[in-house]
């Protein structure tokens, strides 16, 4: 018997695992007919999950956390039983701004510290000259983009809410807004950085992986009540997505994957702007040897929903004033990510799964073998560019340390 599941996705490279699951037969092999519906906004995804038009969706990692903390309109509890890869974002700025930054301080896109220093000098120069604040676009307040951009700015000595301005724009309009001078830069998922570069609107100045190595980005979001009532289906889906992620991560499949994603019903963008994020050539020559990878759909437990990732996003929601810190809130955030479901779904297929639910973010300077349920599993590097460490067991102290 085939089970039909309707899934929302936004046209982004990190929807790859869902698209390949459908197109390469991984969903079908688990008895699932995956209906993929392209959406134009995360608000639509949220609404359609809430009314049950979608059983599952491609979602920003902080979305389920925000929903469960009551920060979004509907009282629908969402959970993330799986992540959809690591990395995949970058910061792109206008040609004018990149020239100013280079004038101030040399940097490469794989060195977030140097790029941050260059931007900080431009901002300070602008302030002494009384220039208008720089404007950066992100796609959603509760997004990895917003929080990694803010983290990078903060650690570079730039106050995101007073030294510059952060505005919300849809990903597909970012490159146009940059080209027209409406904004000076943006932090967005691929292919929208490569699209901006291809149009000559700007240059990539830092990657998500250079700000926080092996960091979380999109997740699979499902309604908690749907998961409880359909656990077997969810398990089958997670197995299908795991196999799909494995396929997406194979370098020999990157060209085929880029061709799939480029189809008009999916990203509708040329292969030439999709492939660089998959094969790492987005990092240029300097980055080819650089570790970690720009976007990782499978290796290094890339689909494991670490509760430490959920808690880090929560710490940033507190930091930037979206929610007050309390033990209850932290617990709600932690339980939004469900490694227990991931583990039971994959228990039968003999793949290595982390045995812990959380890890200290920033503990691994390089890829390291760790104990797993079976076999060895490689994790990391997982450091923040400023060397700070996030220990989920010391959440309160971390939050205090980031208070202005």
């Amino acid at each position, binding site marked *: 018997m085939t089970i039909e599941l309707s899934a929302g996705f936004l046209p982004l490279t990190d929807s790859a695992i869902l698209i390949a699951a459908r197109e390469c037969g991984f969903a079908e092999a688990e008895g699932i007919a995956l209906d993929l519906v392209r959406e*134009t*906004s995360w608000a639509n995804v949220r609404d*359609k999950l809430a009314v049950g038009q979608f059983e599952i969706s491609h979602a920003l990692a902080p979305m389920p956390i925000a929903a469960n903390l009551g920060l979004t309109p509907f009282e629908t509890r969402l959970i993330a039983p799986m992540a959809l890869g690591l990395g995949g974002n970058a910061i792109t700025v206008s040609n004018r701004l990149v020239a100013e930054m280079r004038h101030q301080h040399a940097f490469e896109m794989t060195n977030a510290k140097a790029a941050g220093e260059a931007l900080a000098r431009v901002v300070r120069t602008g302030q002494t000259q009384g220039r208008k604040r720089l404007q950066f676009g992100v796609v*959603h307040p509760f997004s990895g983009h917003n929080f990694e951009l803010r983290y990078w700015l903060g650690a570079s000595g730039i106050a995101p809410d007073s030294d510059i301005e952060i505005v919300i724009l849809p990903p597909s309009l970012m490159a146009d807004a940059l080209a027209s001078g409406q904004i000076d830069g943006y932090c967005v998922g691929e292919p929208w950085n490569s699209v901006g570069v291809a149009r000559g609107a700007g240059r990539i100045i830092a990657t998500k992986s250079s700000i926080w190595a092996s960091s979380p980005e999109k997740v699979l979001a499902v309604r908690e009540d749907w998961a409880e009532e359909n656990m077997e289906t969810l398990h089958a889906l997670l197995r299908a997505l795991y196999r799909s992620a494995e396929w997406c991560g194979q370098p020999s499949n990157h060209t085929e994957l880029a061709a799939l994603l480029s189809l008009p019903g999916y990203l509708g963008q040329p292969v030439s702007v999709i492939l660089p994020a998959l094969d790492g050539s987005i990092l240029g020559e300097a980055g080819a040897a650089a570790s970690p990878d720009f976007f990782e759909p499978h290796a290094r437990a890339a689909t494991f929903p670490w509760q430490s990732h959920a808690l880090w996003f929560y710490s940033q929601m507190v930091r930037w004033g979206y929610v007050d810190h309390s033990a209850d809130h932290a617990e709600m955030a932690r339980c939004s990510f469900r490694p227990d479901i991931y583990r039971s779904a994959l228990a039968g297929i003999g793949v290595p799964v982390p045995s812990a639910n959380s890890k200290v973010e920033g503990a691994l300077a390089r890829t390291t073998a760790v104990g797993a349920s079976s076999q060895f599993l490689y994790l990391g590097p997982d450091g923040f560019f400023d060397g700070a460490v996030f220990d989920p067991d010391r959440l309160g102290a971390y939050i205090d340390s980031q208070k202005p």
Partner: protein
Amino acid sequence: MNEPLPSVLIIDENATRASIIEAGLSAAGHTRVTVINEMHGIAAKIALHAPDVIVIDLENPNRDMLESIFQLSRAVKRPIAMFVDRSDKEAMQSAIDAGVSAYVVDGLRQERVKSILDMAISRFNAFSRLERELEEARGALEERKVIDQAKGLIMKSRGVDEATAYKLLRKAAMNGNRKIADVAESLVMSARLLGDGGE
């Protein structure tokens, strides 16, 4: 009820659809209805009109941006997504099916808004139906064009009149259990491939 009807802002990049909703609301006695087709400077426009209800199409990629404006808005009137209490899941479902969403200022009673959303839903549905019909009409026109081309090719190569050419085409379609337009299309395509333009 002496309270004035809520003021409505319609955000729709499709000007035709926006105007049919506007017309429907006017006919129902709404006097304060504004339409915005252009997203540029939207925050300032919302602040200026301070609407009680905002109606927006789901295809609009700017919903996330709008919601963040509402969140940051220091204004007293703070629009929130419709049906927050989910008391009326059916209405929400039909709104989403129709492709429309609404934001309502906090505190406005749901029953005062329901008729506005119902109107938007029915006009959105009517518009999609019209679009579909137009699409079908366009398709029919295309089919007729290709059948005419195929008839011309047959008349030329077989030296027959138009009626006979059509009969041959229809027979081929029946034998192959296909639509006449499909047979005509393959004929025109192969003629093009073989160098006979058939134009």
